[in-house]
């Protein structure tokens, strides 16, 4: 059984078919890359998986259990974590508090126990603080814990977002262009981090990425989308050789013969 599976996902916006029967099957412990030209439906696919824009047809299965149709917060609670293309750090909170917010589903304080300031609430918060510091350690951002998130660089914000998603202990982590705007050495660090997320945390990763070196280096398998449909799937080498993929990116080759 696959960790994450989609069967025949379809989604239309007006007359545009953004997803056209996408089948995806990601094994546990895999790092899967999703590539494709602009407008191919990559982000739409992630949004359909995590429930932000529910698919009009098809199902999403997590460990064989259907999750499509649930609210995005319920899908997240089942274990599908997510980061976004643009930074979504919460303003008005420190970096540490941002990461602590990721522990939401693993904490139990409610408005009444919080208002009463019960010792259990305080203990839980102290625990959360330590876990969040450990998560920041994992992405090498601990020294920024007390900073305002908005004061960080783009790449640093991205790392904090990853820490915030990791701390919620997802089984599958969806990353939308994690390397965008990073310098080559930072991309190298991200490559390492992604491997550690899989190896040390046992988290399966599905990642949209345009930085081809990262995709080729870290992904076990790559899925190529074009116009909302899957046109190829395989290892990096297989994808590079694939005729249809070349055409999707570069246009049809003019036949030199004759």
């Amino acid at each position, binding site marked *: 059984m696959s960790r994450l599976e989609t069967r025949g996902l379809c989604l239309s916006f007006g007359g545009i078919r953004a997803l056209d029967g996408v089948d995806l099957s990601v094994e546990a412990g895999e790092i899967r890359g999703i590539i494709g030209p602009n407008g191919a439906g990559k982000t739409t696919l992630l949004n359909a998986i995590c429930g932000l824009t529910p698919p009009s047809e098809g199902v999403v299965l997590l460990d064989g259990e259907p999750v499509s149709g649930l609210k995005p917060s319920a899908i997240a609670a089942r274990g599908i974590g997510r980061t976004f293309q643009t930074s979504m750090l919460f303003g*008005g909170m420190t970096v540490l508090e941002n990461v602590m917010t990721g522990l939401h589903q693993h904490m139990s304080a409610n408005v009444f126990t919080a208002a009463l300031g019960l010792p259990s609430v305080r203990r839980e918060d102290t625990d959360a603080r330590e876990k969040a510091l450990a998560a920041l350690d994992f992405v090498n951002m601990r020294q920024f814990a007390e900073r305002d998130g908005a004061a960080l660089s783009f790449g640093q914000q991205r790392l904090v977002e990853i820490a915030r998603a990791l701390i919620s202990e997802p089984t599958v982590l969806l990353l939308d262009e994690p390397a965008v705007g990073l310098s080559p050495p930072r991309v190298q660090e991200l490559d390492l981090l992604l491997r550690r997320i899989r190896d040390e945390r046992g988290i399966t990763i599905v990642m949209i990425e345009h930085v081809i070196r990262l995709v080729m280096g870290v992904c076990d398998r790559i899925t190529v989308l074009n116009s909302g449909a899957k046109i190829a799937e395989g290892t990096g080498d297989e994808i590079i050789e694939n005729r249809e993929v070349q055409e999707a990116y570069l246009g049809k080759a003019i036949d030199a013969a004759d």
Partner: protein
Amino acid sequence: MSTDMDNASRRSLAALLVGRRTVFLLGTLAFAVWPLAFNPYLAYAANLALIYILLAVGLNFIIGFAGQLVFANGALMGIGAYCTGLLMYDGGWPFWLALPAGAVLSCIIGLLVALPALRLQGLYLALGTVAFAQFALWVFIHWEGLTYGNAGFVLPPISFEAIGLGKDLGLYYLSLALVLVFVLIAYRISRSRVGRAFIAVRESEVAAEALAIDLTVYKTIAYGVSALYAGLAGGLFTALLGVVVPESFNLFQIVLQFAMVIIGGLGSIAGAIIGAVALISLQELLRGFQEVQEIAFGALLLATLLFFPGGIAAALKRWVPGWTETHHQDGGGRS
């Protein structure tokens, strides 16, 4: 490294001297001795300020923390006021029972308002809740069989003999005690898992949902908490004025409360408190110039939005060493 340490220790020393804790302590002390030191009119004004602290801190939950542009709190305050007043006037209930009953009813109505309002956002939410406020006002005025209409009614006397105080002092210290308790509660909630969920909802609904935060649940909680504060303040307001009339809960009431939270700084509890005290002081200084009052508040509100979007809280953060406050919304978009 060593300069870092020096800075850190200097900051913590400054925090000890002028930090939030010290300011709160001094503020509490000032409010505690105020009615003993000054004449009854100034004591009345300070009591009014205490009631508006509850209103502003409550309104901050929904517009400052959860980021929902809701204009229902003037009406919810009215519901608390009418419920407390009518239970005493018609039902013969004692004040100490009627007051919490008003707060609870207001909280329930606030949750009922949340049901349809959860489907709305931004401008539509604002319009929907203004409509609710106008509807509530209409009920206060026209359901004469229940509310006694435009003329309102006079509250039966309230006695604080049980704690050995006259009505004015008794109500004053009750208000002060409730403010202390409910400000403490506000801080506890804001620093908890629930408070972080509010801010997540305010900052990005999409990112909040990706962290398994249920938007419906946390918006509803914010409505409920906010309404509870408004209802409680409404009951105290009724007791302070001694009469209940619908015009107390008109559009100006909404503007006044919004001005307090925005001038204080959206998302800042300390800001809401300072905003409430500042605007009640201004209102009392301008007493007798009703039109000037409304223009002055409108102008202040506008000037804050245009030039100091972070409000007083942003100024405190910038200029007072050691003043830290999380969750404050520092004037949208500036870095």
